[in-house]
């Protein structure tokens, strides 16, 4: 029997309910996100992605501070999947909305793909993306197949950004999650393969894309008690990884 249980780990408390709503992409995904900024001080830059950016908003706050207090456009939403999401606006939908608002941004800072792996993994793990000790670090072929599909979605999305007039993309990868309210420490191999494929999506796309790998920077102590999201120090570290790359594109 697997030594994990969503029921056990989420058995009670407001924090568990909050996290579930965040991950499930229920309408509260929008409410559990920092407000979108559809018209910013600097409209050249636009953010798309999931709750890593959207839940606390601290990554953007730090970047605004580094940018002399000037804001960037922001459409990140908690619960966002890369494409299709039925309730929370997916990254693809965020891009469409942003283009309708103002098609003149040229620099994108984004992430995406994490919820596509994480949500099923914590809901019974049907693709076997959680690697148990007895699997000796081998990620299942089903999980690799899922991630390969996410790769293709990702590279097609990036090529679509190029067609929309975006010239520069900064793609933030994912760090290792930990056991917290969700027992997701066993996602390491999925995170490794996911980051490999997302970095390839970046380099294989026709847009100028820089992939930022946060795995070496983010420790367990940089992650909140839910096991997934960055806390204040984690957000600061992520922002400080992004800023030198973003600053060169401003």
């Amino acid at each position, binding site marked *: *029997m*697997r030594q994990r*249980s*969503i*029921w*056990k*780990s*989420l*058995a*009670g*408390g*407001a*924090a*568990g*309910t*909050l996290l*579930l*709503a965040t*991950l*499930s*992409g*229920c*309408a*509260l995904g929008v409410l*559990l996100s920092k407000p979108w900024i559809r018209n910013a001080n600097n409209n050249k830059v636009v953010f798309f992605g999931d709750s890593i950016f959207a839940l606390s908003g601290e990554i953007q706050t730090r970047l605004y501070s580094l940018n002399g207090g000037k804001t960037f456009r922001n459409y990140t939403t908690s619960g966002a*999947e890369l494409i*299709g*999401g*039925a*309730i929370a606006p997916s990254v693809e939908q965020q891009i469409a909305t942003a283009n309708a608002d103002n098609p003149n941004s040229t620099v994108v800072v984004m992430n995406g793909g994490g919820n596509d792996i994480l*949500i*099923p993994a*914590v*809901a*019974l793990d*049907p*693709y076997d993306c959680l690697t148990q000790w007895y699997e000796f670090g081998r990620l299942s072929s089903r999980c690799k197949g*899922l991630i*390969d*599909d996410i790769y*293709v*979605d990702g*590279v097609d999305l990036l*090529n679509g950004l190029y*067609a929309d007039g975006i010239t520069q993309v900064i793609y933030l990868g994912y760090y290792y999650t930990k*056991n*917290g*309210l969700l*027992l997701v*420490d066993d996602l390491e191999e999925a995170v490794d393969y996911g980051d490999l494929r997302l970095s390839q999506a970046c*380099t*294989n*796309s*026709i847009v100028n894309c820089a992939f930022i790998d946060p795995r070496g920077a983010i420790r367990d*102590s940089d992650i*909140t*008690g*839910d*096991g997934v999201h960055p*806390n204040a120090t984690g957000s600061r570290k992520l922002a400080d990884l992004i800023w030198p790359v973003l600053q060169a594109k401003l």
Partner: protein
Amino acid sequence: MRKAALGIASVAAAAAACLATLVALRDAPVAQRDAAPRVEAAARPDDVAAAPASVQEPPAAAPDADAARAAEAQEQALRDAILAIGEDDTVTLDARLERYRQAVESARDGAPGAALFANPSMLTEVFLRMPGVQRELAALGPGARSEEIAHIRRELGFAEDQIARMQELDDWREARWQNGRQYMEERARISATFEGDALADELAHLRERYFAQEAPTLEREEAQGFFRFERPRVYGRN
């Protein structure tokens, strides 16, 4: 009745989760979001050093442990039941969908994590990725397949406007697969005919003809040994 039940249940579960969250947000101090992991997580060896000294297995933990074991057994049974739906070749697509709905409803009943099972995207993708489902969808003509996928999405909680949007995405992906398969056939012929620099030149022209400005993406993928049109086709997903 049952056909509508999951859609209604999906919306209801999502609404309940959202309502519960609103209540939780109202009642709980913000600091609780970053509260220390529950005992079960904190007690794991990796986390012992970081756990407060006072975080120990409580004396009255036996009922909790029993409940946890029961919950794990329930989760395992549910996972097994869901995977079995995809492996059973004796049932029709509608029967599979019905069994899947029942399994999902079971998961939701009284589950504190019900919100996760109210995510139509996740539910639909799990169902669509079942080998038996794909075999049946592959056997249908394009029109019937499209209707069947729309039916599946509707039953698993997608709204009509979302179904229409996903249909557009399906159509776009289908065109990509048709184009890609023709490309792969021509690619095989060229690879059997040319070699060396001539082969590289021919393939470059071929990629440009089929993929226009996206040709460099295909070239890089192939250099990495990844041929996207040799992936398993998952109708409704890729």
